[in-house]
């Protein structure tokens, strides 16, 4: 594949790809009318898209270090934005976010603000400067800025802890979707998911991942937006839901006060299958204290700016200027999905609880609800449950339970959309989980192969050998992640949030101060990274084992404590030890101006 030509033709290539995908959806819709079974459609969607990604991964194969680690540094801003958005939006964003909003309302929406606001920090504090640095990985920056193998190794440790926590959740999500769509047991589906993930990244490294992520973004955004718009139009809620659902939001509030939030007894709740929840919180009311909301948002924002798999996407742009713009595009593409999630939650909730709608089930008799086709399907999938607690024969608001994933997965079916949409949604969820898993596995494998193997163990290693090591690590880390995912220890969303907290505990201040504070030195950075990670981990373990916590910091926001310790440790130790030498100070000066060669390019 000729690179120059290829880059110029990108809009055309992905235009054709998008058209082809829409064509595929239409063919499936026609096939459904002609009697293709739901199961076959699901398999076709997942198999077809995964095949395309694998093909892109194969075409992007490379034997050059620059292409393998940073996609040759020639990814145009808009495409890098799409790739970052896919990298960023995980299976959790795709499958679980609307559900979280549906059940928890305002308190949960702190995640929406946090997962977008963090990009302002990325654009203004870090991305352009790290691009100027010209590094391959995030620890590469730490190692060169602060000097010494211990600093580099500490960064690898933090990166691995954070990214590995995250990646098990993503492989878990890939497995969940593959097991539903292909109808195979989860234990096997996890490994099928893993093989699909490795097909994208193994041959082409960052180059392969970049071009598959763009393809995955296109699939996932179509799969998310199409049902939202369709359902909104079908319900008569408005042809552009984002601007037109105010009445629906108000109507939900009205119904909530009409039904009331009746509290179920513990004995009743014990009969509800694990993982399902009822509607217990007001949809649009402010139901969290300012600090609960802000601390969660803040933790997610600082975590965003510390997660290496996102940061390394900005190493692939052609210039510093492009890196800045590219952050804006990334957030724009993320915004398209995030701003739709609350709309989906609104539509989903209203269609279920409004007795005046044909889809509404509250107020119907229990027997009637239990006879509905979609109820039976999702009840069998363990995502829906009704029970007549008060024995009056009628379904009340507090007697209806649903799994968080069902909001995205089941709403199209409830609203009466054809099955082809459900197949599309499965393909979208698969794309979201795969793209994030790819970025994460690559981030870990690259850090270990480049920073530990090449920079510390064997600096004389040839490119060919380095790339073999990188690929072996990719497979090993993937399998380790899949093995842990198969054990199903922590829910998808929980581990995602933890990953942000780990990353911010250890990396936020060492990265930011590396650019913005010349006086920061090696000893300080090491203290900041290891001290922050240790403090954060200690707090998490303490709260998990019955500790009371302090200042309202919970197990979801432990990074606030970790990063505070990191900041103090870094500043105090830096000031107690010698200031960095002239060469390092000059290096920091150069990082601060966009023109000229990259720092590492000069050495």
């Amino acid at each position, binding site marked *: 594949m000729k690179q120059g030509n290829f880059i110029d033709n990108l809009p055309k290539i992905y235009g054709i790809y998008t058209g082809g995908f829409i064509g595929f959806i239409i063919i499936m819709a026609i096939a459904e009318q002609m009697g293709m079974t739901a199961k076959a459609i699901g398999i076709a969607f997942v198999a077809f898209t995964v095949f395309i990604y694998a093909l892109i991964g194969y075409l992007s194969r490379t034997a050059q270090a620059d292409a393998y680690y940073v996609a040759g540094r020639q990814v145009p801003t808009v495409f890098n934005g799409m790739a970052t958005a896919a990298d960023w939006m995980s299976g959790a964003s795709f499958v679980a976010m609307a559900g979280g909003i549906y059940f928890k309302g*305002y308190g949960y*929406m*702190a995640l*929406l*603000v*946090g997962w*977008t*606001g963090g*990009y*302002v*920090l990325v*654009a*203004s*504090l870090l991305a*352009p400067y790290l691009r100027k640095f010209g590094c391959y990985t995030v620890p590469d920056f730490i190692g060169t800025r602060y000097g010494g193998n211990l600093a580099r190794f500490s960064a690898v440790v933090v990166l691995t802890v954070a990214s590995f926590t995250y990646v098990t959740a993503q492989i878990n999500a890939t497995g969940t979707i593959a097991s539903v769509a292909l109808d195979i047991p989860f234990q096997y589906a996890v490994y099928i998911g893993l093989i699909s993930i490795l097909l994208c990244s193994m041959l082409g490294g960052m180059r392969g991942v970049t071009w598959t992520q763009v393809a995955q973004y296109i699939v996932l955004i179509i799969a998310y937006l199409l049902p939202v718009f369709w359902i909104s139009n079908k319900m008569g809620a408005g042809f552009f839901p*984002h*601007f*037109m*659902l*105010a*009445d629906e*939001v*108000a109507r939900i509030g009205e119904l909530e006060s009409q039904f009331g939030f009746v509290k179920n007894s513990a004995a009743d709740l014990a009969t509800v299958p694990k993982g399902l929840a009822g509607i217990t919180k007001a949809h*649009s*009311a*402010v139901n*969290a204290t*300012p600090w609960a*909301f*802000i601390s969660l*948002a*803040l933790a997610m*924002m600082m975590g965003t700016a510390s997660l290496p798999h996102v940061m390394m996407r900005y190493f692939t742009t*052609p*210039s*510093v*200027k*492009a890196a*800045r*713009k590219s*952050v*804006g595009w990334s*957030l*724009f593409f993320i*915004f398209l999905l*995030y*701003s739709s999630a*609350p*709309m989906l939650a609104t539509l989903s909730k209203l269609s279920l609880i409004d007795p005046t709608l044909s889809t509404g089930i509250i107020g119907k008799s229990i027997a009637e609800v239990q006879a509905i086709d979609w109820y039976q399907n999702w009840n069998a999938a363990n995502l829906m449950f009704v029970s007549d607690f008060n024995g009056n024969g009628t379904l009340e608001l507090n007697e209806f339970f649903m799994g968080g994933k069902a909001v995205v997965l089941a709403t199209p079916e409830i609203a009466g959309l054809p099955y082809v949409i459900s197949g599309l949604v499965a393909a979208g969820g698969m794309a979201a989980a795969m793209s994030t898993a790819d970025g994460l596995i690559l981030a870990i494998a690259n850090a270990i192969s480049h920073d530990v193997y090449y920079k510390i163990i064997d600096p004389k290693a040839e490119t060919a050998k380095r790339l073999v090591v990188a690929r072996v690590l990719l497979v090993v880390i993937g399998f380790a992640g899949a093995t842990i995912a198969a054990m199903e220890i922590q829910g998808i969303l929980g581990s995602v949030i933890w990953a942000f907290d780990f990353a911010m505990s250890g990396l936020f201040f060492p990265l930011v101060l590396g650019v913005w504070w010349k006086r920061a030195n090696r000893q300080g950075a090491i203290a900041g990274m290891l001290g922050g990670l240790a403090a954060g981990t200690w707090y998490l373990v303490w709260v998990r084992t019955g500790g009371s916590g302090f200042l309202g910091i919970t197990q979801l926001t432990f990074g606030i404590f970790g990063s505070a310790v990191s900041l103090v440790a870094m500043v105090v130790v830096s000031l107690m030890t010698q200031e960095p030498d002239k060469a390092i100070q000059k290096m920091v*000066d150069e990082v*601060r*101006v*966009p*023109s000229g060669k990259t720092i590492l390019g000069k050495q």
Partner: protein
Amino acid sequence: MSNQQKHWEKSRGLLMITLAIWFVFSIGIFLFGAEMNEVTGPFGYPWTYWFTCQGSLGAFVILIFWFANRQEKIDEEFGFSEREDE
């Protein structure tokens, strides 16, 4: 003061403004979330609810593009912008 110092001073000023705007949309308004939610906002949604769904998110997108343009201007002013991307 050298050219480079002036450039950095101005860049730092821009950072402060950017972070101040960021603070308003990510933290400031949520200090008064409960009070503001009583008021009807854009498109008829309650204010705070609208900010969490769209308002703050959209503000961040605009803020980043604005920041990128301003920073480019500063780089040009002091002659530190990169040559045209090949």
